[in-house]
């Protein structure tokens, strides 16, 4: 947020303010100032330093006499010195002078930690690396470790701050803070860490910056410089379930262009579109918001993917429905490893005949978005011309129409990596109505525009397409740079997005690659082989107990302790209603004491019961007679007969009413929530 000089000044400001307050607050002249005066003085100091900082940079005196750099540094120092000193001054004064000051201070420190650590969310920064790598090789979310650190720090700092004021109640405060930290952990465990919505100051968006093309680039231009390393391995896929695609290619979808931005199709900016896509990586498990239909025609396939080069988004075998982060067996080799759960299509194209397009829950706007094309009437003309030859029984069938368009492109298109249309206003139009020579981007855009022009909702899927033969019978499949692909997709009702990929019969480039079976097998083994993975883990792990197991045990234990504590609490309150008359004096009295300790009144160590009763009689006046009766029976001679249950119930009820009417609301709430209040009863 600031330069080095500013940071040093901020630190110095804190020290000065701490020195001032901690050592001088109780001496003249600070001791004679009111709390509000001190805070206002701090605020004025801040304003003064701000003014000074502004003055230094806006006037040219210092810049001229020495250098602009010195002026800037001076201004930054002054500004941050003022901010830190005034903040510390106010907080320390409040902590010294008021009871709630310490709480505010703790909150402030905790917030500072949260802000600092928030940048690490979702693995945006894996620094410090020794923590990030340690966690990722074990399949643990590094943010959990960072959060544990944060909680620990907050607890330790709070302990220090509270100890200053009141050592007696320290364990109690500490337990409450511990509970808060624990509930934070549970929350994250149950609901995950929220994804940051906007770019923060550090330029982090939750997505990796390097890797494939960024959003603004023209997708038609990316072929320009890609030719040199087309065989470079990109990722390795290990099939955990057997699956053989019907059309001879494995499609891995990473993202899709679906929204027409005025020039061409682009990533959608609307929440309602492309809800089936999972656009960011996760450290745990991420599921698609919209599942494809026709499940009986699909096969659930689990694949493990190890990325060899960084990607912006995860990709998975079509149609991916969930991604799960997995332990990285070799973090030198793989950038990321995750499992993909896919519902891979097993239907024949005949199944698609007669199906309707679109989705029932699409609004009219969404429908419109999926049908928008460039303002060019030739698309519609061409598309209609192509479907006129359909047999009458298929004349109204969307799939038949789409197939006719695909066939046209198959027969007439020429595949080439030459890129002559990239700088046209509409590269797809230039390709389609020109020489029909281009690569996958041209074909997919042209097909999508043609589909859309006759009312078929379509988009361009992007990802990888690998010939099924590359798998060579093994369970591993190597994805290479050349397999990067784009294809048109059509949405069929109750089925989902269906790939209708034009395959030009004439091609000017050799798209085949040398079989890399040994590399494929090696990488596959590395990703899959559990034995070597275990070995690797053994070499990396010093502790032989899994952190995850310890955490799970810890969660369970804590939950058990909480539940038990609540049960005991309830038991102790209710048992007087069921106990015999002889035990009423003990149990009913204890229940009343429990109620009192829940609202913060409990007997001190060594204090007599009568002394406590006197102290508590402001809250519950009837505690005094209750105590006397209890003691008469407990300590008195045998001629004290036990009272019957009814009378005791009456006494207990009167005490309860008094406590209720003499306690503030937040105390009452904490009395109900605190599971350990009965532990304070003595």
């Amino acid at each position, binding site marked *: 947020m600031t330069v080095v000089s500013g940071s040093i000044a901020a630190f110095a400001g804190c020290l000065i303010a701490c020195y001032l307050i901690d050592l001088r607050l109780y001496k003249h002249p600070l001791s004679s100032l009111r709390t509000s005066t001190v805070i206002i003085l701090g605020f004025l100091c801040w304003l003064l330093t701000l003014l000074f900082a502004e003055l230094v940079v806006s006037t040219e005196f210092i810049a001229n006499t020495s250098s602009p750099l010195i002026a800037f540094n001076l201004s930054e120092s002054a500004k941050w010195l003022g901010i830190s000193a005034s903040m510390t001054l106010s907080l320390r004064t409040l902590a010294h002078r008021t009871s709630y000051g310490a709480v505010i201070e703790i909150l402030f420190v905790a917030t500072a930690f949260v802000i600092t650590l928030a940048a690490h969310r979702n693995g945006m920064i894996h620094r410090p690396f020794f923590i990030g790598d340690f966690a990722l090789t074990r399949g643990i979310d590094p943010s959990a470790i960072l959060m544990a650190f944060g909680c620990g720090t907050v607890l330790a700092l709070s302990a220090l701050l509270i100890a200053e004021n009141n050592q007696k109640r320290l364990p109690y405060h500490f337990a409450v803070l511990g509970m808060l930290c624990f509930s934070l952990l549970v929350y994250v465990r149950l609901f995950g860490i929220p994804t940051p919505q906007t770019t923060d100051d550090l330029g982090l968006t939750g997505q990796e910056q390097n890797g494939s093309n960024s959003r603004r680039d023209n997708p038609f231009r990316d072929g320009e410089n890609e030719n040199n390393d087309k065989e470079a391995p990109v990722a390795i896929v290990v099939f955990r379930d057997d699956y053989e695609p019907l059309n001879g290619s494995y499609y891995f979808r990473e993202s899709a262009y679906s929204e027409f931005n005025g020039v061409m199709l682009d990533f959608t900016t609307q929440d309602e579109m492309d809800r089936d896509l999972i656009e960011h990586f996760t450290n745990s498990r991420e599921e698609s918001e919209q599942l494809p239909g026709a499940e009986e025609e699909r096969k659930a396939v689990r694949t493990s993917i190890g990325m060899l080069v960084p990607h912006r988004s995860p990709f998975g075998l079509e149609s991916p429905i969930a991604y799960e982060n997995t332990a990285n067996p070799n973090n030198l080799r793989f950038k990321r490893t995750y499992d993909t759960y896919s519902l891979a299509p097993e239907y024949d194209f005949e199944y698609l005949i007669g199906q309707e397009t679109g989705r029932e829950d699409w609004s009219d706007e969404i429908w419109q978005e999926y049908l928008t094309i460039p303002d060019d009437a030739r698309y519609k003309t061409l598309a209609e011309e192509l479907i006129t030859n359909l047999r009458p029984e298929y004349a109204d069938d969307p799939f038949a129409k789409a197939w006719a368009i695909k066939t046209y492109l198959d027969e007439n298109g020429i595949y080439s990596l030459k890129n002559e249309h990239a700088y046209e206003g509409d590269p797809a139009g230039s390709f389609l109505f020109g020489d029909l020579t281009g690569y996958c981007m041209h074909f997919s855009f042209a097909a999508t525009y043609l589909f859309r022009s006759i009312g078929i909702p379509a988009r361009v899927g992007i990802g990888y397409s690998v010939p099924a033969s590359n798998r060579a019978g093994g369970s591993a499949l190597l994805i290479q740079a050349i397999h990067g692909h784009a294809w048109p997709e059509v949405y069929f009702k109750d089925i989902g997005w269906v790939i209708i990929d034009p395959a030009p019969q004439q091609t000017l480039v050799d798209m085949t690659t040398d079989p890399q079976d040994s590399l494929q097998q090696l990488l596959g083994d590395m990703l899959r082989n559990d034995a070597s993975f275990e070995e690797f883990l053994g070499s990396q792990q010093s502790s032989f107990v899994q952190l995850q197991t310890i955490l799970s045990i810890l969660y369970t234990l804590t939950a058990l302790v909480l539940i038990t504590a609540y049960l005991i609490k309830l038991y102790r309150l209710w048992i007087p209603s069921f106990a015999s008359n002889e035990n009423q004096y*003990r149990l009913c009295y*204890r229940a009343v004491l429990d109620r009192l300790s829940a609202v913060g009144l409990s*007997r001190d*160590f*060594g*204090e*007599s*019961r*009568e*002394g406590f009763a006197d102290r508590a009689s402001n809250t519950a*006046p*009837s505690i005094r*007679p*209750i105590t*006397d*009766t*209890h*003691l*008469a029976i*407990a*300590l*008195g*001679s045998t*001629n*004290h*007969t036990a*009272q019957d249950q009814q*009378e005791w119930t*009456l*006494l207990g009820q*009167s*005490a309860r*009413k*008094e406590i209720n*009417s*003499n306690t503030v609301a937040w105390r009452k709430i904490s009395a109900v929530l605190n599971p350990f209040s009965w532990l304070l009863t*003595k």
Partner: protein
Amino acid sequence: MNSDNVAEAQELTTAMSENSSAALAEAVDVLNTLKSTVQQQVLGRDDVIELVIIALIADGHVLLEDFPGSGKTTLAKALGEAIIIGSSIDESIVPFRRIQFTPDLLPSDVTGVPVFDSNSNAFHFRHGPLFAHIVLADEINRTSPKVQSAMLEAMGEKQVTTDNVTYSLDELFFVIATQNPLDLVGTYPLPTPQLDRFLFKITMEHINRDAELDVLETYKNRRDLSGQLNTVTRDEVLHARQTIDTEVSINPAIKTALVDISRNLREDDRVLQGNSTRSMVLLLPALQVSAALRDRDYVSAEDIEILIPRVLGHRIELAPGVSDLQKVLLDNMRKPMEQLAKSTFS
């Protein structure tokens, strides 16, 4: 607020205490009469009056440590006047005597002396000032150890011996001794073992402003008042002593707490010499009276908290450099008292 509930609860408690014996109630009446009578004469000293009455009923003696003119004689006299002889047979016993101790006092001046009667040609014992219900031994530290020990024998044994003849003192023999905490020149301070004979050592502080004003306002009226106040008889007091001893119960947990406190004190490094076992024995009846004064027929932690500092204060010798006796006592009481409180749950 919830006055209904409180009233309800209190009603229940009174119903519970109805069972306690009527005899105890009678005894408590005697105590309260004594208390109110003395309170009318001595203003602003309610706590001291209560302690003195506890000591009287518990058959102990008290040592008052205070400044001249702070009302100790008035207190002793008021107490003596509140107890009338009643049906006593022995005419030699009077309600109240005061002895001013001086360095030249002889033991016979205190106990009495046989004098030769020329008429009957025989020695007759002339009773000394000890033959009374209430004896005020003023400035006991000013007299020689010889007289002090004669005095202390009388206190311990309730008898005096002169010329090998032993004369019994009254059953209700109660000594209020005083000493001046300052002005120690020419005194014979009582050693710790002798202090052990006193149940309480009460350090009186100056009474508060309102009470002092009250004293000045009403001193004339109070002088006239004597003679019209309620009194109790010696026998009633003795009867009350017996009743309280039998009717107020002491739970074993109370005794455990007392023993534990003593043991803790003896083990404490800050304590040079702990309290005697006798002090605990003497404490038990005092606890019973304290409980009775609070309308209880059982001894409770409250009684211990009130009486322990008074009983143990002069029996403990602190190590050199340690001055805060109250803190030492409280530190050593905390654990046994906690156990006592906890024992009511089991």
